[in-house]
């Protein structure tokens, strides 16, 4: 789907967030970007989304052109909903910005809310929803334009473990059902191993791609208890420790 070719991002204050980060993202991939805080994960995601430009290197899209508005869905760490709009209007926002009418989009909005299990909460305002439900609205908002690429920046980091497990399983289900490409940033080795087909480790700042581990885990809720999951976590932990040790040396 796209290839990141030796991306460098240096901020005006001199911080080098990314140093020659290269990665191929295939169509239908589920990739987790895993790395210590400040290693440039969010920066990388923003470059892919076109919200920021690299100082060196390039992003090559398989289609030849950068995606049009709405072809990329972005989910932030906070749900960032409009507090004055109800769930349905929050989900409608990306469609509205592309000139769609509210009545014409009603079916899509309802379908997007149903996909995240919130069909009965279309008229609830953010303050009436729990943290997990708000994040679901945020995911529905990202999915409503049927994006080819879904970028997620630690979307579940602020949630309790019960909610997080539930949303991880739901997200994996959605990915299999919709067949979109997902790049998911996380701090959590457990989360990365459970979700992803490819676990990409980044070095401490300036971030580079240190290593990639391909998961052979059978996806699904049962995966958490599988021996293969524990082994995968161990493998990723070892790789992470080795990467941190190399960086410290």
């Amino acid at each position: 789907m796209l290839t990141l070719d030796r991306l460098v991002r240096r901020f005006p204050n001199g911080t080098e967030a990314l140093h020659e980060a290269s990665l191929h993202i295939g169509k239908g991939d589920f990739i987790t970007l895993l790395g210590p805080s400040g290693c440039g994960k969010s920066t990388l995601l923003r470059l892919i989304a076109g919200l920021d430009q690299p100082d060196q290197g390039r992003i090559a899209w398989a289609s030849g052109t950068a995606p049009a508005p709405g072809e990329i869905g972005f989910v932030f760490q906070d749900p960032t909903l409009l507090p004055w709009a109800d769930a349905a209007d929050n989900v409608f926002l990306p469609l509205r910005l592309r000139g769609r009418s509210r009545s014409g989009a009603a079916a899509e909005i309802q379908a997007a809310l149903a996909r995240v299990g919130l069909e009965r909460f279309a008229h609830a305002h953010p303050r009436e929803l729990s943290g997990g439900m708000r994040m679901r609205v945020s995911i529905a908002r990202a999915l409503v334009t049927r994006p080819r690429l879904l970028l997620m920046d630690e979307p579940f980091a602020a949630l309790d473990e019960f909610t997080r497990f539930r949303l991880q399983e739901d997200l994996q289900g959605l990915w299999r059902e919709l067949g979109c490409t997902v790049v998911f940033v996380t701090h959590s080795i457990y989360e990365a191993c459970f979700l992803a087909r490819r676990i990409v480790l980044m070095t401490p700042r300036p971030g580079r791609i240190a290593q990639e581990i391909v998961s052979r885990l059978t996806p699904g809720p049962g995966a958490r208890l599988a021996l293969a999951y524990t082994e995968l976590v161990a493998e990723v932990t070892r790789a992470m420790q080795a990467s941190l040790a190399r960086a410290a040396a």
Partner: protein
Amino acid sequence: MTRFAPTLFAGFFLVLWEAAVRLAGAPEYLVPGPVAIVGAFLATPSLFLASLASTLGVTATALAVAAVLGVALALVMQASPLARAAFQPWTVVLQVTPIVAIAPLVVVWVGDPFASVVICATIIAFFPVFSATATGLAAAPPELLDLFRLNGARRWDTLLLLRLPAALPYFLAGLRISGGLALVGTVSAEIVAGSGGVASGLAYRILEAGYRLQVPRMFAALALLSASGVAINAALGALGRALLRGRGEA
């Protein structure tokens, strides 16, 4: 109990005041008690109420003008960094200049008493609503701004669907402060204009009664002014709560 505490305190205070005045035998032209003050009001109620209406009319007009100008300037500064750089430092001048110091100049220049009082009150009411709105327009969360960009939003969409609604609570908080200041500005300007014998507001009633040593009348006008201030503050607070509740917040 805490709900009624302010009312209880007021009642207690008034009774104490009346008792003290009577026991001390203080003459009415020095310290009138509450009964004498109410009596002064009831002697010419229509005169007081007409003055009250005049003062409140000026205050409301000035507040409306200040709100419109404040929002307009905040929008211009949001749209253009150059305008922001040019105006920002100067808006503070409006905030720090004492209104009684400019009022005589405005009265001389403008001539028309109503217009000059409105202008003075607008000058003093302008800053809070302007600066709060400017802050609110700039306070939209960066992630939401990114989301708008990702979906190809034009500037106009971002303003209409994100910046303006996000600024509403800020605007309302600023408007509430400006409401109180509009009254202060109106009374200050009325005092200046009133000494020329042109105004008809409550401040003029105070001046007039002062010249004639009718202290209870001064107190009656003062009480109406305080009550107006409290009412303006409460009304704008209620308006804010109603608007925010109406769109599902607060």
